[in-house]
């Protein structure tokens, strides 16, 4: 039985953890991110016979401002590559919240947009065109209220569709100014050659153009760690052969 990983991303105060608690119940534990004093929670839930490992990322407005929280969330999405990244948005302030959604979608298309607090938004007279948002972003969108337990089944269905690969989307491609696009075009082949096809080359090129030293450091550390791990393995075989 395959187990899928779902990462929960979202701004602070969007009800991300309310949803996380609702889905995972008591089947969760908290801990620290490796090397960082950022508290995280992991849990488990099942839907239609599939088991999901849920990871509650720190609540952030962005993935780019280089606080420990944001670095942890960013690194998880890029390096751990969850089967689904669930972006939880506050229906009552979508404009602010879509900033993070766009950043996540530029990294991966394996995402579901979850618009929470939909009951609150309706009370305030806010109408949200889910179909238009899904079309523009290219990934499934679900409107829910975690507090009132509205729309949860539909949300889980969408998560399942992305997790099983029933729907697939490439990372969202935003066209930038000519100057930036030229930079991306120059950098992307170099990035692809250096980091391989596992990571979103266009996005990394974009971050390099922005002078994101923190991402560069994470990338380097991650690649060195992987190299060290594989060389250790080879050494292990050698030792066994000597016996």
């Amino acid at each position, binding site marked *: 039985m395959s187990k899928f990983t779902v990462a929960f991303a979202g701004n602070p105060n969007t009800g991300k953890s309310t949803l996380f608690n609702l889905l995972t119940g008591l089947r969760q534990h908290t801990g620290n991110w490796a090397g960082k004093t950022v508290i995280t929670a992991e849990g488990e839930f099942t839907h239609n016979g599939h088991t999901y490992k849920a990871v509650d990322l720190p609540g952030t407005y*962005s993935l780019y*401002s280089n606080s420990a929280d944001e670095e942890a969330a960013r690194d998880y999405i890029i390096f751990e590559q969850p089967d689904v990244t669930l972006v939880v948005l506050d229906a009552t*302030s979508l404009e*602010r919240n879509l900033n993070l959604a766009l950043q996540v979608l530029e990294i991966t298309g394996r995402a579901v947009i979850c618009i929470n607090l939909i009951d609150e938004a309706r009370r305030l007279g806010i109408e949200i065109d889910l179909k238009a948002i899904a079309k523009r972003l290219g990934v499934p969108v679900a409107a829910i209220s975690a507090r009132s337990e509205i729309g949860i089944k539909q949300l889980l269905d969408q998560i399942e569709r992305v997790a099983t690969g029933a729907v697939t989307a490439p990372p969202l491609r935003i066209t930038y100014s000519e100057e930036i696009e030229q930079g991306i075009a120059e950098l992307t082949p170099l990035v692809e050659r250096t980091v391989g096809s596992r990571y979103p080359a266009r996005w990394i090129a974009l971050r390099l153009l922005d002078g994101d030293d923190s991402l560069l450091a994470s990338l380097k550390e991650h690649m060195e760690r992987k190299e060290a791990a594989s060389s250790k393995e080879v050494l292990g075989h050698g030792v066994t052969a000597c016996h």
Partner: protein
Amino acid sequence: MTVAGTPLSEAANGSILRITGIDVQGVLRRRLLDLGFVVGNAVEVLRRSPLGDPVAFRVSNTTIALRREESSLIYGERIGGGRDE
């Protein structure tokens, strides 16, 4: 870079401004953009702390307090609210 407009730090309580420019670079600029201080966006000056700094602003439906160091580098033009002086 010089930007036209009033620095947010100088705007009167209750006034609403449309942001015309942000004269901050690097990570701090990114942070301000993420918080909603984007050119074209509206900002309301909510209130000042007792010593006048920091100042609370309402932007994209959220209250954010900025120190003078930052708010003096964000410029806007008044589009409403507040008392006329």
